[in-house]
């Protein structure tokens, strides 16, 4: 296990120090976007489309404008005068800010009402009279490519049908040949439905334009404030909003999970409104708006896994249809339209793989939010982990045994995967063994045999995933051309206290604590003496933000390297103070001393003071350092999860009896925070596995657009999670860390699905798509019984 180099008081890596950011949240003093109140601030409310696909015949503002307190109704036509009615998505598609003639999904923004307060703005929105001419929506993505399907995006030059792009990776011919020649092939179409991040804080903005200074101050629920500022400058530069005049402050964020990476039309309209009116404008989504707009997942994956008859995997092929809604607003690196989906070969060693994907337009909300996973890793892991279990069932093999038989072994790292990744490190055998010991695997197998003999349904599900996080090396990873490095800037003050600023943005991950711990580890300055700041583009160094588990792999690394620059400078100062040459100075945490004479020493605090008061002649004064970290590779955390369930044959009710999660995220900064992140991710994993999924009817109406019918798990649905670790440091990360928070969201759904399907196996049920609800189980049981 990881051993701490620092004392608990210094609080470097490995200490479960309590969080520095807690106090304000516990006392109701957090500062979220909706808490921002500026003098003269106006409120904005959206008018939204009741139809999934319709022509807008007219928008009559008169009745709304007649209401006392309603100041403006902004339409697409109004924005078109400034060429602001369309905007680019993060993946270079285009999205309407406000429509001029057609609405493309239910709940799309139609126009915005600006009023003196929210209640009056809602009155105004009710009073706007919009006349629509509804059209037949395309809801089923498989029908979007039919010859007679209407062309949804005639606005796009050269667009002849509803196909957006084709992507492929791997050797198709060799993979197909291997599948054709194999002893055993299992096939399945697996759907990962649309889901929503449903952070408890919705999205929102306060935009405040000062006509005298020409500065645009924006408080924004953003996980990536720097990138959004650049995008705004690129989109709205022509009307005078240039980058140095835009200041984005991402204040406290009430949960992000990827949903606060994109730019939503409401942000842009509020900013435009403030720019035109010259007063602060606030827009805060209500929950229904939040749940109906933006989504994650929605991949239909046709999988084929081939193996020898004794269970050695030989080839994997997956062909996917991706439903992107009316525009591809996936928040992916630009060279990776399907994100890191090609991690789908999993934790297993075999030669042949081929993955392809076709993306289509439908009349649904745009999205492709990387919901708590590093860009489509959840889909990829679900595909391979379900298929490995299906193969095990087909061969009557134990799902653990088939995994051990196929795992990439510890000495094979760095491992070149068939679809082009270089896995950095792992010990998959050890991780699974630990999970099996912790859950008591062998005992459960016996219990299962006994229960099956009694006709009871009990299942044990495994998932042994490999994640790919920490985007990323700039040669491969960028968003709209901006390389995905990240940054840290450290200032050590004369009294030895410090502050550091980062290009990332915490949404609950505890950066104010963990970044301070990294600096404590490197410099020996107690973590309590270090203030951390993020989220203000006027003060923080440029960075691409927090998502894809990238903060520790990128900004965490930047912090370590910036601290090491300081340590090097400090060595010269210490030599000067101790009147010896630099070569004679050695370092132990927090202290420089003379080689062979440890009593002659200077603390980091002494050195910091000297950097401002008594530095060597010719040296640049001050004790500050900045680093922009461009990672040489991604990091590859892994985990082994085991779920035990019982299913009630009469009702279909599913009881999760145990869930054990062993994660290997490399070296750990704060075990308490890592464990907390894993707990939270697991609940966000059981959510799509058993409860959540955005449903549509044939007209494109969302059927579960509120928290009354979109079932976010409560403390009752969420099991008592059991967690543990193996530690295999990343060889290329300066701290040996990998990132963790997304692993549980990725790993839990297949473990749960595999457990439920294993429970139903005696009835002949071989696959169910998530969410696996009691109703779905009950129906499957009835169908299976009817067949038997």
């Amino acid at each position, binding site marked *: 296990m990881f051993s701490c180099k620092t004392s608990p008081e210094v609080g470097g890596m490995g200490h479960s120090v*309590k*969080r520095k*950011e*807690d*106090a*304000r*949240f*516990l*006392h*109701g*003093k*957090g*500062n*979220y976007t*909706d*808490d921002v*109140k500026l003098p003269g601030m106006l409120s904005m409310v959206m008018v939204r489309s009741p139809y999934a696909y319709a022509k807008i015949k007219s928008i009559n503002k008169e009745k709304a404008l007649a209401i006392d307190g309603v100041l403006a109704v902004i339409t697409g036509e109004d924005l078109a005068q400034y060429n602001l009615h369309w905007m680019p998505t993060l993946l270079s598609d285009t999205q309407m800010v406000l429509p001029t003639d057609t609405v493309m999904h239910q709940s799309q923004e139609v126009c915005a009402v600006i009023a003196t*307060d929210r*209640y009056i703005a809602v009155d105004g929105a009710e009073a706007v009279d919009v006349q629509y001419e509804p059209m037949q929506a395309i809801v089923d993505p498989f029908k979007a490519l039919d010859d007679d399907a209407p062309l949804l995006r005639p606005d796009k030059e050269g667009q002849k049908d509803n196909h957006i792009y084709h992507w492929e990776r791997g050797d198709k011919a060799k993979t197909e040949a291997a599948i054709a020649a194999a002893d055993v092939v299992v096939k399945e179409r697996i759907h990962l439905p649309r889901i929503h*991040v*449903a*952070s*408890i*804080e*919705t999205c929102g903005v306060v935009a405040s334009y000062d006509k005298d200074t020409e500065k645009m101050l924006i408080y924004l629920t953003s996980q990536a404030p720097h990138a959004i500022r650049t995008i705004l400058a690129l989109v709205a530069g022509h009307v005078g909003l240039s980058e140095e005049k835009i200041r984005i402050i991402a204040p*406290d*964020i*009430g*949960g*992000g*999970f990827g949903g606060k990476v994109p730019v939503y039309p409401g942000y842009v309209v509020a900013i435009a409104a403030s720019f035109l009116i010259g007063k602060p404008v606030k827009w805060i989504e*209500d*929950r*229904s708006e939040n749940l109906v707009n933006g989504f994650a997942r929605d991949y239909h994956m046709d999988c084929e896994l081939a193996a020898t008859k004794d269970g050695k995997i030989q080839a994997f092929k997956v062909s996917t249809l991706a439903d992107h809604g009316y525009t591809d607003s996936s928040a992916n690196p630009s060279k990776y339209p399907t994100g890191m989906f090609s991690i789908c070969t999993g934790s297993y060693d075999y030669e042949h793989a081929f993955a392809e994907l076709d993306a289509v337009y439908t009349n649904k909300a745009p999205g492709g939010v990387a919901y708590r996973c590093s860009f489509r890793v959840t889909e990829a892991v679900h595909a391979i982990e379900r298929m490995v279990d299906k193969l095990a069932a087909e061969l009557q093999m134990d799902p653990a045994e088939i995994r051990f038989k196929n795992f990439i072994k510890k000495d094979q790292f760095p491992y070149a995967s068939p679809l082009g990744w270089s896995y950095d490190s792992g010990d998959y055998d050890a991780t699974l063994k630990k999970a099996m010991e912790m859950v008591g695997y062998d005992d459960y197998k016996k219990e299962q045999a006994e229960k099956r003999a009694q006709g009871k349904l009990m299942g044990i599900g495994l998932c042994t995933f490999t994640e790919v996080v920490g985007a990323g090396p700039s040669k491969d990873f960028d968003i709209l051309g901006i390389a995905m490095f990240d940054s840290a800037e450290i200032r050590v003050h004369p009294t030895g206290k410090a502050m550091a600023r980062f290009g990332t943005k915490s*949404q*609950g*991950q*505890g950066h104010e604590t963990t970044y301070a711990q990294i600096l404590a580890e490197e410099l020996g300055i107690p973590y309590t003496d270090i203030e951390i700041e993020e989220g203000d583009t006027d003060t923080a160094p440029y960075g691409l933000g927090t998502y894809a588990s990238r903060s520790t792999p990128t900004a965490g690394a930047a912090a370590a390297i910036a601290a090491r620059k300081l340590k090097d400078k400090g060595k010269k100062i210490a030599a000067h103070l101790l009147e010896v040459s630099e070569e004679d100075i050695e370092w132990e945490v927090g202290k420089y001393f003379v080689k062979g004479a440890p009593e002659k020493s200077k603390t980091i605090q002494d050195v910091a003071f000297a950097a401002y008061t008594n530095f060597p002649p010719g040296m640049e004064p001050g004790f500050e350092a900045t680093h922009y970290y461009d990672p040489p590779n991604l990091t590859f955390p892994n985990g082994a999860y085991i779920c035990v369930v019982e299913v009630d044959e009469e009702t279909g009710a599913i009881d999760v009896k145990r869930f054990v999660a062993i994660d290997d995220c490399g070296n750990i900064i704060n075990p*308490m*925070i890592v*464990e*907390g*992140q*894993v*707990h*939270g*991710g*697991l*609940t*966000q994993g059981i959510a799509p596995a058993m409860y959540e999924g955005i449903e549509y009817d044939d007209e494109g109406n969302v059927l579960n657009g*509120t*928290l*009354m019918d979109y079932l*976010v798990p*409560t*403390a*009752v649905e*969420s099991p*008592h*999670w059991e967690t543990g670790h193996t530690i295999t440091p990343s060889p290329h990360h300066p701290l040996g860390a990998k990132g963790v928070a997304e692993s549980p969201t990725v790993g839990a759904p297949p473990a749960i699905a595999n457990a439920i399907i294993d429970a139903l196996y005696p009835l002949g049920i071989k696959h169910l798509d998530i969410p696996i609800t009691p109703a779905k189980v009950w129906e499957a049981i009835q169908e299976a019984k009817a067949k038997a």
Partner: protein
Amino acid sequence: MAKHTVTMTINGESVTAEVDSRLLLVHFIRENLDMTGTHIGCDTSSCGACTILIDGKSVKSCTYLAVRADGANITTIEGIAADGTNHPLQQAFHDQHGLHCGFCTPGMIMRAIDLLETNPNPTEEEIRWGISGNLCRCTGYNNIVKSVQQAAKEMAKEKEATV
């Protein structure tokens, strides 16, 4: 819009104000009184981020008109401990890492105060059911349960000390 004069006690202080009939209590607290610790997370009374105490009982203030609170004794997250000190639940959430983003935390704590008032020594299952009207998207609830357990013990000790 008809106006009404309401008087209520909030965190020990008497407040009198003129409010619209339709003004929700949560907006009265957040907008009129500038106490933003009480949050809004949904529009269907599902999430519990807006939970406060009205006459000692936990109530979702997004589904309660300000006029209805006339004469009520209200406690919000800002009023459960003196400045610079922690209520046992605040301390326990800190100690047990019972919060991540902090958005659900005030509502969760206000609900837990009521829960421990009616059931001072709850089992894990009773805690889980007891907070099931409050959603947290970050923590997975394990550590919230532990926080409530720690606070229950501390509050029992305090009670014993005062008897």
